[in-house]
């Protein structure tokens, strides 16, 4: 279960609306390497790991990703608040506006809707942790790309915080992978899937 704290993980206080920036940043809400995919990936994967420590990492990072999802939504919300019809048309936000008005909806910057195919839950802890490490790096690259496109300090600050968290999560997933391989046969980590195969002598 979860409980809500009525605050953001990091302050988002944007002074000027800017629909152009919102259209870029929305990719980290519902895009291929965004926070929705991140949270759903880790929170879905945790059931298949036989190791409590790894399930703990997946739960806690998945939970933090939900807080990041809320931060990205807050950024988009504040960037699109009080937009005039003229600004909506001029910025190219009209294509989003026609379907969602100013509602927050998960899509990539290019307009592609969020899709569960953007993450895997493979039922194999080694495979899943490799995906997770790659996912953190892909999200970090996306935030780097966003930071090259925007200069506004009040938008950059929360984006920099989110980028930094990708690096910390990558580190923790690497440690979770190490904890996993430490429990497996060091001569062949792939001898069996500890989340599926029932094998008495597999732990070497």
């Amino acid at each position: 279960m979860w409980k809500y704290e009525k605050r953001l993980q990091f302050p988002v206080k944007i002074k000027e609306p800017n629909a152009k920036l919102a259209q870029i940043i929305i990719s980290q809400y519902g895009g291929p390497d965004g926070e929705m995919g991140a949270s759903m990936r880790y929170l879905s994967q945790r059931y298949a790991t036989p190791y409590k420590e790894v399930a703990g990492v997946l739960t806690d990072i998945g939970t933090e990703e939900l807080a990041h999802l809320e931060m990205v939504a807050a950024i988009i919300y504040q960037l699109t608040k009080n937009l005039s019809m003229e600004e909506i048309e001029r910025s190219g936000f009209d294509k989003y506006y026609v379907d969602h008005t100013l509602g927050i909806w998960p899509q990539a910057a290019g307009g592609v809707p969020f899709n569960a195919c953007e993450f895997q839950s493979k039922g194999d802890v080694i495979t899943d942790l490799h995906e997770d490490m790659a996912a953190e790096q892909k999200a970090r690259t996306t935030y780097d790309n966003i930071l090259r496109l925007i200069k506004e300090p009040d938008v950059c600050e929360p984006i920099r915080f989110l980028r930094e968290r990708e690096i910390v999560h990558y580190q923790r997933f690497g440690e979770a992978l190490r904890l996993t391989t430490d429990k497996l046969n060091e001569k062949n980590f792939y001898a069996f899937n500890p989340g599926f195969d029932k094998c008495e002598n597999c732990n070497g």
Partner: protein
Amino acid sequence: MNGKEQLLFNIGVVDFTLVDLGLFLDTHPKDRRALEYFRHYAQIKRQLCREFSQKYYPLTLAESDSEKAWTWGEAPLPWEGACD
């Protein structure tokens, strides 16, 4: 920053410490220094959250004081920029 904003900011700082320490402890469960830090900051966070809910509004359902009035829905929404 006024008193309310400063207190909410401090809660954010202390809670971030706990989130980061929590992840570290997930993979280093026997690290004595991290355990001590976690206990120290968890205590501070409880105090700050209690102070905030008494002075301003509850941040969690558990801190809602239902004796006087149900204030949970009246608190500012975090995405409105009330988070600093």
